[in-house]
C-alpha cells in the first residue's frame, strides 16, 4: 500500500479533496451538496491520507484533535440555533444578515449550521477510521 506512486498522488489529491469538500459544503444551499456530503468528502480525503502515510501523519494533517472537530461542529450547530434566541425568536429560527460575501452568498445561520454538520461528520468519521486503523 505504501507505494511511492500512491503517496505522490495523495500529496496532490488530498488538498484538492479538502478544498472540494469545502466547496461542496457551501454550494449545498443552492445546488447538490451540503454539510453531510462535504464532510464525507473531506473525511475521504483524510482516509486517503491514512492509507498513504499512516495514522500519525494523518493526525498531523488534521491539526486539531478529532474530538475538537466534533465538539466545534456540535457547538456551531447549537450556537446557530441560539442566535435566534438573542434576536427574540424561537430556538432555531433562521436569521439572515444582509451582508453579501463573495462566493458564499448571503450570510445566515443555516450556513453556520451546515458548517457545524461538516466538522462533526469529519470528526466522527475520523475517530472511527483511526480507531480501527490504529488498533
Amino acid at each position, binding site marked *: 500500500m505504501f507505494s511511492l506512486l500512491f503517496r505522490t498522488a495523495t500529496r496532490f489529491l488530498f488538498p484538492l479533496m479538502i478544498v472540494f469538500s469545502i466547496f461542496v459544503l457551501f454550494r449545498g444551499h443552492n445546488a447538490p451538496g451540503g454539510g*453531510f456530503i462535504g464532510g464525507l468528502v473531506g473525511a475521504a480525503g483524510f482516509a486517503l491520507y491514512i492509507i498513504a502515510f499512516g495514522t500519525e501523519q494523518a493526525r498531523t494533517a488534521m491539526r486539531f484533535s478529532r474530538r475538537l472537530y466534533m465538539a466545534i461542529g456540535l457547538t456551531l450547530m447549537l450556537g446557530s440555533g441560539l442566535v435566534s434566541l438573542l434576536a427574540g425568536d424561537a430556538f432555531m429560527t433562521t436569521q439572515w444578515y444582509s451582508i453579501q460575501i463573495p462566493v458564499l452568498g448571503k450570510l445566515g445561520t443555516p450556513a453556520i449550521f451546515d458548517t457545524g454538520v461538516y466538522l462533526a461528520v469529519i470528526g466522527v468519521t475520523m475517530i*472511527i477510521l483511526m480507531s*480501527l486503523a490504529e488498533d
Partner: protein
Amino acid sequence: MDIVLAITIGVLVAAGIYMIQRRSFVKLILGIAMLGHAVNLMIFTLGRVTRGVPPIIHGEHGLDVGAADPLPQALILTAIVIGFGVQAFAIILIKRVYSVFQTDNIDTLVNTDFE
C-alpha cells in the same frame, strides 16, 4: 419502474436477512449494511420515483413540475450517514467481542456475562 424496484428491493432484503441469520460476525455486519441499503431504496421508492429532475428550485417559486420529491431524499440522506455510523460501531463492537471471546459463532454468546 416501481415494480422493478420493488422486486430488486425484495431481493436485497432477502439477501440481508439471509446474511444476518448466519452465525458469522462478518456476515452479520454485511447483512445489516445490506438491509440499510434496501430500506433506503424502499423509502426512495415509496416517495414515488421520477426520472431525472432533482429538487432544485429554478427561479423564485416552487419546484418545476415533475421534479423529484425532496422529502424522502432528506430522510434518506441522514439515514445513509447514520447507517454508516451504526455499521462502524457494529464492526468495532464485534471486533472487541471477538478479541475477548475468541469465537466466531454467534450462538455461543447467549450469556451476557463473562464466564
